[in-house]
């Protein structure tokens, strides 16, 4: 019992209690099921706020929950959960987005509501575990476990091509993780421990082996992020996934990849990370430009948002591998920003899709006049996504660019300059989308909806409530990001200590 009352275990496993309750509710009582799931997710958000209250930004790994797990047969595997500045915001993002995503399914998911909610809450358990596990074996279990519920979410409640997308998502991601599995085993066997802090303290992995291990971990994380050229699963998964699935996929699951780089690649293999930084930067820049260019040419608005993720996460990777404080802090903040803005974009795309059952940009037009609230909110989110000053995206991208510009690891400001072009491209594709869908004469979809005896309606109260929390943070981070940076900064400084030796100041 004490085990479950420790804050980190409580927040991780609390959704399972919701799952148990859900299993007891009848499948026909859809609203009860929704309320139970939402209530669970909200309470869990509350728990995570309580954890935030206990959190000391200046401290090291904290709120530790450590138990011997497998200490026989030559294994040294612990149950080891802890939180620090690198993960606290991601934990909060997870618990924050989950209730929002659940709220968005209220009318969108009508079939097999019970199963949906069960998978959704199980997914939350997996994601939270990933961000807090400090033992590689435990981490791997959580990491692979998130695949299963997401696979079902796409496969059962997804769009017409969902089978293909679900299997592709699963196999693609698994291909990366199994290579990581071997690297994890190598570390465990040769270093005698799976605990990340112990491995960091021990160090001393020869440079050539470090590079191999770095590559194996990168395989898993780069697919998840996804970095160009390993991104091809993402558009399929996003387009086919139900809205709530897309929100979590973009908002949290992709961050598991970038977080993995941060926690494992940078901490465990500093020399290799330094050596690989320019290569990663090249891939990141290609990702930024390619993602933006491909976004522009999409006819499907959901696909446009999906490809914009490739571009945005390119920024995150660029900042992280700049290997200086600005770059990494910007990268972490940008992870959160992307979760908020892209999450909101997917939600809004889902809201209109629910009414019109099409996502083709060409059939829309003049929506701002017809649905003014929807239009105004969309404009804010779109501007946030393209990085307008005063909104959250700007703060993240600007800090990243500053970091990349002065990065000693890259050795040249060229990456920052090229990425800046990406910011302009983002403005182009986002505004293009907004112009086509929301300005100009009313699109033919308006007539079509009327033809079916409906009227395009503006957002209802539930939908506005779903979006409002996201908007609050979009403004908050945009106008006053200091509290967020304060949470991250000490941990980033500590993370950079080994690099000072490598880079030389």
């Amino acid at each position, binding site marked *: 019992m004490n085990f479950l009352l420790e804050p980190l275990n409580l927040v991780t496993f609390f959704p399972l209690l919701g799952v148990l309750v859900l299993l007891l509710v009848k499948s026909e009582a859809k609203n009860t099921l929704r309320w139970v799931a939402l209530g669970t997710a909200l309470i869990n958000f509350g728990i995570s706020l309580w954890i935030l209250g206990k959190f000391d930004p200046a401290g090291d790994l904290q709120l530790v929950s450590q138990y011997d797990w497998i*200490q026989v047969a030559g294994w040294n595997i612990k149950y080891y959960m802890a939180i620090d500045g690198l993960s606290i915001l991601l934990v909060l993002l997870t618990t924050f987005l989950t209730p929002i995503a659940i709220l968005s399914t209220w009318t969108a998911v009508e079939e097999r509501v019970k199963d949906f909610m069960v998978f959704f809450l199980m997914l939350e358990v997996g994601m939270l575990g990933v961000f807090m596990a400090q033992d590689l074996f435990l981490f791997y279990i959580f990491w*692979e476990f998130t695949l299963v519920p997401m*696979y079902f979410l796409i496969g059962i409640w997804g769009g017409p091509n969902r089978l293909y997308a*679900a299997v592709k998502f699963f196999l693609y991601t698994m291909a990366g993780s*199994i290579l990581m*599995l*071997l690297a994890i*085993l190598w570390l465990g066997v040769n270093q005698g421990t799976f605990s990340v802090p112990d491995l960091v303290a021990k160090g001393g992995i020869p440079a050539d082996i470090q590079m191999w291990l770095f590559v194996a971990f990168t395989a898993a994380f780069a697919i998840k992020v996804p970095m160009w050229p390993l991104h091809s699963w993402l558009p399929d998964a996003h387009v086919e996934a139900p809205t709530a699935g897309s929100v979590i996929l973009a908002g949290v699951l992709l961050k598991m990849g970038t977080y993995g780089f941060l926690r494992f690649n940078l901490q465990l293999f500093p020399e290799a990370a330094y050596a690989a930084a320019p290569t990663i930067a090249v891939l990141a820049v290609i990702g930024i430009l390619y993602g933006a260019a491909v976004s522009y040419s999409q006819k499907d608005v959901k696909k446009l948002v999906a490809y914009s993720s490739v571009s945005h996460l390119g920024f995150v990777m660029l900042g992280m591998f700049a290997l200086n404080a600005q770059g990494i802090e910007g990268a972490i903040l940008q992870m959160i920003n992307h979760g908020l803005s892209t999450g909101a974009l997917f939600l809004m795309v889902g809201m209109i899709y629910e009414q019109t059952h099409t996502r083709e940009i060409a059939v829309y037009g003049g929506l701002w006049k017809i649905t003014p609230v929807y239009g105004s909110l969309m404009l804010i989110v779109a501007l946030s996504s393209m990085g307008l000053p005063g909104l959250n995206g700007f703060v993240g991208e600007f800090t990243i660019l500053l970091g990349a510009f002065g990065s000693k690891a890259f050795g040249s400001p060229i990456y920052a300059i090229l990425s800046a072009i990406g910011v302009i491209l983002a403005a182009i594709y986002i505004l293009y989308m907004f112009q086509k869908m929301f300005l100009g004469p009313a699109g033919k979809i308006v007539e079509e909806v009327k033809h079916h005896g409906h009227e395009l309606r503006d957002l209802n109260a539930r939908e506005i409530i779903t979006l409002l929390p996201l908007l609050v943070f979009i403004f908050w981070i945009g106008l006053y990001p200091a509290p967020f940076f304060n949470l991250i900064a000490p941990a980033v400084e500590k993370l950079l200590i080994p690099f000072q030796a490598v880079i030389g100041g």
Partner: protein
Amino acid sequence: MTQIDLYSILPISVLVAFACLLLLLEVFYPKGKQKEIGFFAAFGFALTMGLAISQLGNTISGFGGMVALDGFSNFLNVLFLLTGILSVAFAYGYNKRMGIDRGEYYVLIMFSVAGMMLMGQATDLIITFLALELLSIPLYILAAFSIQKEESEEAGIKYFLLGSYATGFIVFGIALIFGATTSTAFAAIIASIAQGTANLTLLTIGAALLLIGFGFKVAMVPFHMWTPDVYQGSPTSVTAFMAAGAKAAGFAALLRVFSSLFPSLAADLAPVIAVLAALTMIIGNITAVAQTDMKRMLGYSSIAQAGYILMAFVPFADEAVRATAISAGLFYLVAYTLASFGSWGVLMMLEREEGKGLSLADYAGLGKKYPLLAFAMAVFMLSLTGLPPTLGLVGKFYLFRAVMEGNVLWLAIVGVLTSLVSAFYYLRVIVTMYFKEGAPVIIQDRLAYWAIGSCVVATVALSLVPAPLFAWVSNALISPF
């Protein structure tokens, strides 16, 4: 015969005695009431299991060094008896539905399990051979048990012919080893090799022949050709028993014989085994992708799984890694037995008498209509793939560690890459069950439900709390008699 001698084979004796008793009982039992034989058989297995568990921690050698009771054989005895109990539970309803509910069935299973147990305990090649025959002959009969069906007959004949052929290899191998060392007893062979009086050429050829013979039993590529046909043709209850029990027994013999007798030949044999393991994983998994018949798919999957277990076997001569390698093999055997038996059990629930209900398409919609059964199948598929939260992941983790400690990294890479291939066809079952519409028909069979349920619970629970199982397998050592 001293008391120690008897004690060393006590569980086997009790099981055989029980089987003989049931054989007599079956003759005099009124027709139509023979199903009670099944209960007696289950009772016999449970009783023997109790005895086997009570023997835990003993390390003794009996019958002048012909039979050993040690951690290794003790662990396997329990595993084989578990296999026996599960087979009875699954066969009980299934055989009745298929019109093959005859009492001999249980008796044959009991004899076969006794052979498996003896196989793990044998420390004389003659006993190994005897055990192999005791294990195989009932299986030949069982494969053809559904005599009204041609496929079953064909399976029986095929299995018998190829099995006898493989036995020939083993006998010839034993003869050569005897020629090389003038003995069939493990202790004498080891001494002869140590003193340098053994003829190494003959010994190596003998060992290679044994590898072929046992390779046939465990369905190792390229000696796997019989597997899909026999698995498909035999009654499913028999197939489940073969896929789990007979395979495990083959591995038991391989592990004991090779790690006791042939560490000195490792330079020649280990690379061969490594290549065979790799081929088994590759061919088994890739061929399984193309199957649409569930029985054939699981058949090929069981070939692939043999490759993974074989992997643990590669560092058998490395003094420092051997203990890990053997424990990892045993650990994975448990994971495999649970998942494989469980999935065959699910197959039996869907199979209908006229031979329908066995294709992948028959599983469409199972997730909606029978959520519990579909959940069970999904867990087994995840476990066979090696994904959390199942025992299969922990087992594979252990196997890969053994290989890595044995410095055969390339084999571990082949292992993970073929796991990815396997994910494709295991996932396809999940896809069909959950993502496709259909109206599957299952047969309500309470006993089978319970058996499947316990496999699921064990697969998940042991993956979360694996420490006791780890402790047990790491003590399941082969003692050097």
